């Protein structure tokens, strides 16, 4: 599954379309940035409600391929600007972290 495959799904609204379209190989669900930093796998999609500029910084350092912000949380402009600078996709969904994780797991054939 590639990042662009998420963009084509109706559940996900792409808020930051200037991304590098890499292959997603895993998922990680967490709102604690240190946890993401320490444990998210490279090329995973991050499922979170932590809509903050720091989420982009951590994702970029940890090699996260895309961020999905759950429960329709608003994303500040500086977060999206940072994501654009890093070439990191940001999606928003109405579903919560559990529902989104389940959806992504199915897509990854887990």
């Amino acid at each position, binding site marked *: 599954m590639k990042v662009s495959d998420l963009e084509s799904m109706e559940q996900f609204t792409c808020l930051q379309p200037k991304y590098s379209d890499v292959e997603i190989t895993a998922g990680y669900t967490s709102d*604690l940035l240190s*946890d993401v*930093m*320490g444990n998210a796998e490279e090329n995973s999609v991050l499922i979170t409600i932590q809509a903050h500029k720091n989420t982009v910084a951590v994702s970029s350092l940890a090699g996260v391929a895309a961020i999905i912000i759950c429960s329709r949380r608003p994303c500040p402009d500086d977060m999206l600007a940072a994501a654009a600078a890093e070439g990191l996709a940001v999606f928003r969904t109405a579903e919560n972290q559990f529902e989104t994780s389940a959806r992504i797991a199915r897509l990854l054939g887990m």
Partner: protein
Amino acid sequence: MSEEDKKPLQSSLRVQELIYGLRISEVMTSKVFAVSKNCTMRDVREIMRNNEISGVPVVDSKRVVGIVTMNDLMNALEEGALDDSVITWMTSEVQTLAEDMPLSFGISAFGKFSFRQFPVVNKSNELTGILTFRNINHALIRELSRQLRHMERQSENPPEADSLRFTKVYQLARYDFENGGTASSEIKKFLKSRGVPPKLVRRVAVASYELEINLVAHSIGGMLSFDINEERVKISSHDRGPGIADTAQAMTEGFSTANEWIRSQGFGAGMGLPNVKRVSDEFAIESAVGMGTMVQAVIYLKQEKEHESQ
């Protein structure tokens, strides 16, 4: 340009970092004049006079139990009590420093207390030296000239464009979450551009980011420095306080002193320092309340075997 806008020179930050990196034992005077409890104030006067010093520690089987300062001596003189035991006149609330503390802690101690010298003790609490302003000035001058020589050598033989040699110091201010992450992101890009394997780059990024966020979230400000060569990445973090009362507790996963606001920024899960230790090949932490915290993390770039966390 206002004062706040002025960015400190990288070279001045380097010197500061070098000084911070010194241990108190490398700077202190090791030849200490101390007196035992049985000595008199007259003995102290002789020692001070003959050696031009202004403070003499009082020891009881090598442990520091007090210090006689010039002030104490003058008080005894006024009362004509030079034959009294030092015990009567010494300052018994004496602040000591540990010899393996970074010099930055010593500098903080001079700011915090009004003493003009600090007895230095080893792990068994035995007197091994004394730290004065004079020692610090000497160390400063020594490090400045060392840094100057280093810069001269570097301008003669600049490193090759694609070399893995890199040193930089970043200053971080309290609660500046805006800029927390800048250093890590620069270092990550540098290592990536030099073809360092992604797994190693990631470990460096994790250690560096956690230390950066720690400085921003928990310290009153400090500096993060990188010293990179072909063999390893050395990351050092120094701050000016408040210091950690129990470093073992701070190293426990889940323990955090973060407030609600820090947590709202997505931090404060109590994983920072444990994360740094996990990704590092060498890890050291030193802290003292009121004086500061120093963390050093080294990641080897030439891995003989896979790191245990991989």
